């Protein structure tokens, strides 16, 4: 697990560089509009890709049956989080759905 720890620390250092970049190092306001738009899209794309990878459970073209609790939890969370403010209740509801389905 030393690899995971090393990656965690590396991400921390890079994140700090992002944080100070436009304040102390270089004016990010001068980034071209295309670059700013790509940065805008990077966040939802990264989150969605992680959701996709999590739903698949690390396997290509997964057999959906064992993943039903995860899928159900994600669906419940998505519907509630899309309509509500905050993520606490949607996540708790999604977890409850996943847990209940895993008992079946």
């Amino acid at each position: 697990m030393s690899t995971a720890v090393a990656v965690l620390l590396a991400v921390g250092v890079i994140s700090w560089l992002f944080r100070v970049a436009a304040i102390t190092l270089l004016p990010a306001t001068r980034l071209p509009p295309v670059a700013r738009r790509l940065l805008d899209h990077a966040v939802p794309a990264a989150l969605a890709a992680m959701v996709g990878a999590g739903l698949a459970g690390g396997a290509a073209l997964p057999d959906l049956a064992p993943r039903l609790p995860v899928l159900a939890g994600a669906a419940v969370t998505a519907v509630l989080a899309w309509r509500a403010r905050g993520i606490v209740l949607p996540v708790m509801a999604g977890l409850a759905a996943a847990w209940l389905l895993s008992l079946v």
Partner: protein
Amino acid sequence: MTRSLDDTAAAAVRDTVPVAASIAPLALVIGATAARSGVPVPADMAGAAVIFAGAAHLAVLTTIGAGALTALSAAVLINVRLLLYSASIEPRFRRQPRWFRWLGPALLIDQTYLVVTARDDLAEPARFRRYWSCAGGLLMACWVATVGLGSVLGPLLPAGVPLDAAAVAVLVGMLAPRVKAWRTAAVAVTALLVAAVLPGGLGLLVGIVAGAAVGAALDRWAS
């Protein structure tokens, strides 16, 4: 001035406590996921402090199996938004002392950015510095402590508890509120499907690139 700065500190605490409560579930999931992955509690708490961003931290823990480069790339792409926050909040740091311009941004995350940009009474540098330090410091302390609590409680959970479902639910909870426009929906659907269909780390990276590329193409088409 002292009394005024004390009031500023109190306001920062008042604004931050509900925010800290709202991110506690994510911190618990991160701690429990790290414990199940065999990451030592002190190392995960140190990671929580230096990364200080839940989605990126969770990305490392859930994708490390696909390789260090994949995990690093996913987390960095998620945190690249900090660059935009940094640019946006730069005027507030312009009149700050040099040490604060280097150390203060370490507390910059979605929540501190949103909380501080919602206030219009922080134009005076000392007042901003006090508010930022109190709000960000308190939030970081709560965050690291809750991640540690999750690390301790994680191994005590029964084996049947679907932690992978918890991690996915938290990510969905963060993604869904962003998907209000059809263009963002197209980005998200593309990235999700590509990442789900392609294997492991390759799917994750190609999914992110494909989603962002679709977004950029739609931007160009619309303009």
